């Protein structure tokens, strides 16, 4: 358990930086809010996702964590193009699919598949398992009709189900087995990217581990990249070498897993991690000291100005209300969006973002200072802003 920035060799193939299969830039999803008046005007927007940028590298997994309503599922649905984004780019293998017309999405659907949370409602109860798993083959006409069944059986075997059970119905299977069926279905077309939206949270604990292991096997065997969306911090850490934390529609921190879980710099990430109950606590007894977040997440219709977390943040100052903190790269693979970013217990007294944003400590613009442009880029740069020296440095 060393905390070096170097990746410990993990289940996933080694990452090759700069080889993204998916690149999401400044992605936004606004849902209109209609007035209740005589004419139903649009009076506002739910800013479900507001300017999210990240990369998923080939054959690896990016974890997206956050609490309900933070926009992580909406992001997943945009990447699979179940939603049409309000703005921003989704570059899949270099091609922007954000505004592709619904009619032209079929080839993309072959490449990007989704695994859903609830194995009870996401499978049609009136179709046999064979029909569910084989449907993508039939729709996309990838194999001749008589080859579908052998392929389905092969897939069932891959996910650890009895291939002879292809003619059974979903209700004859347990929750964990159903999730395996869902995974088999998503694998049918040999996708390059799987978006897994809370794939294990509806399952019993003893079954969760089975499914997580299966997903890891599948990743290793087929070299599939994952966008892994979950609220369970431990599972995300186990599965994903890189993790992004979302709060109220924005990414507040993104880093490789060791950095994020051991040296988080954003107060929200720190609070989130400290809130996870710990089995090891039993040896000591009682409850740990934790960062207590007060109140609830504000409404995404009218989010707080500046930093969206400031209303619940113990470090919030004037600048936080005035200037939105940029997602600033502060390490080789570490970005954080906080004016007072720092390790737990070592948050600086003055904003670290003054130079970058061209403002003073109160958040007022400094005449003559030019803010560093466009920090909201996907992926990581070779140069980053070192918090100690307050200078840009590089490798």
């Amino acid at each position, binding site marked *: 358990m060393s905390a070096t920035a170097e990746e*410990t060799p993990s289940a996933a193939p080694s990452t090759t930086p700069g080889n993204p299969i998916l690149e999401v830039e400044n992605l936004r999803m606004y849902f209109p809010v209609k007035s209740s008046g005589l004419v139903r005007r649009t009076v506002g927007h739910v800013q479900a996702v507001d300017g999210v940028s990240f990369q998923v590298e080939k054959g690896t997994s990016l974890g997206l964590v956050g609490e309900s309503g933070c926009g992580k599922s909406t992001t997943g649905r945009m990447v699979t193009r179940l939603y049409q984004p309000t703005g921003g780019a989704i570059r899949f293998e270099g091609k922007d699919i954000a505004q592709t017309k619904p009619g032209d999405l079929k080839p993309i659907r072959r490449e990007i598949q989704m695994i859903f949370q609830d194995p009870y409602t996401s499978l049609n109860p009136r179709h046999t398992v064979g029909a569910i798993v084989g449907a993508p083959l039939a729709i996309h006409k990838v194999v001749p009709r008589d080859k579908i069944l052998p392929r389905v059986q092969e897939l069932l075997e891959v996910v650890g189900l009895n291939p002879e059970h292809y003619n059974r119905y979903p209700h004859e299977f347990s929750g964990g087995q159903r999730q395996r069926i869902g995974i088999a279905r998503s694998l049918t077309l040999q996708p390059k990217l799987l978006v897994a939206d809370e794939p294990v949270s509806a399952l019993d604990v*003893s079954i*969760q581990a*089975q499914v997580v292991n299966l997903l890891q096997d599948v990743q290793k065997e087929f070299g599939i990249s994952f966008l892994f969306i979950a609220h369970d911090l431990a599972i995300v850490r186990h599965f994903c070498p890189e993790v992004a934390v979302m709060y109220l529609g924005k990414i507040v921190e993104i880093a490789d897993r060791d950095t994020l879980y051991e040296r988080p710099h954003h107060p929200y990430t720190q609070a989130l991690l400290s*809130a996870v*109950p710990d089995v*090891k606590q039993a040896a000591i007894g009682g*409850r*740990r000291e934790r960062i207590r*977040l007060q109140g609830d997440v504000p409404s995404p219709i009218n989010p707080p100005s500046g930093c969206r977390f400031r209303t619940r943040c113990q470090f919030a100052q004037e600048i936080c209300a005035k200037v939105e903190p940029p997602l600033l790269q502060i390490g080789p693979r570490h970005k954080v969006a906080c004016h007072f970013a720092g390790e737990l217990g070592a948050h600086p007294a003055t904003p670290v973002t003054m130079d970058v944003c061209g403002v003073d400590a109160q958040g007022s613009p400094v005449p003559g200072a030019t803010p560093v442009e466009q920090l909201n880029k996907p992926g990581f740069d070779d140069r980053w802003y070192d918090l100690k020296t307050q200078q840009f440095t590089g490798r």
Partner: protein
Amino acid sequence: MDSMASRATEPAPSFLSVRDLQVHFPTSDGLVKAVNGLTFDLEAGKTLGIVGESGSGKSVSSLAIMGLHHGTNAQISGEIVLEGTDLLGLTPDEMRQRRGRDVAMIFQDPLSAMHPYYTVGNQIAEAYQVHHDVSRGAAKKRAIEMLDRVGIPNAQQRVDDYPHQFSGGMRQRAMIAMGLINDPGLLIADEPTTALDVTVQAQILDLLQDLQREFNSAIIIITHDLGVVAEMADDVLVMYAGRAVEHGPTNEILVHPEMPYTWGLLSSVPDVTADTDARLIPIPGNPPSLLNPPSGCSFHPRCPHKDKVPGDLCRTTLPDLVPGQRGPGHTKRCHLADPESIYQSEILPEIAPDLVEER
């Protein structure tokens, strides 16, 4: 450990004492034995964590304590003695008068557990009025007090809100207010934080502990999350297929577990500090059918250690819930002769190698 010691010597008059509880449901397919011979004690002001998967009988047994199986076809036997009275011997109406006053319950999903058509205040006040002969106004005032106590801001105004106007965390706070308004001696919390986010879960668990100290209630917390148990419970009861399979003080169970099912639970959940190279070690197979439970030890079809038991004992004979190597307070239902050494040599290195080195 006090409660454990006293239990071994005499049938102590503890606050809550459940003896050989059986809950069976006759169905057209056969008898579903949801709870089978459950026995435990709970002292006032203490917390018992009941852990298990869906279908392990943890919720069914708590509903039996609440007397909420009345009116169903459940067949219940055994004893549930609360402060000297056997709840199973009461008439439905006598039990009704105790429900909410002596034992209260909060549920997993606070949105569906509250009536969508009545205000939060109305529902809380109603809980008070059932057991106290007071005016509506007085009951409402008490409801506001309780909402304030559980940390609802602006309780005076929010009391007239409907459940859908509350956030998930606030709804669970309101449910707790409803549960504690009559100052019950026993509060049963059935997966109280499963539907909530981690930061909200932490708030709710903090609140439950504060209130427990203030009201000196005994709490039974039912959960599948061993982390919650580790931080909340004094004692842990692990259930599998309707039976207790391991029971003892929390630090005993979680630090020196002796039952392979408990090991499975510990190893199948990743930890936020665990080694990410290690594969999760799932419990193989699926939870058993309660209609047709496995012979012998119900866990044997999924148990990776059954070949360590001589003969065919696991398949043929149901082990008793007896103290293992760790003293009388820690009981387990397993044939394994030396579970501690298996745990230390085979399980712990897998789930927490750092802990092994410390030893």
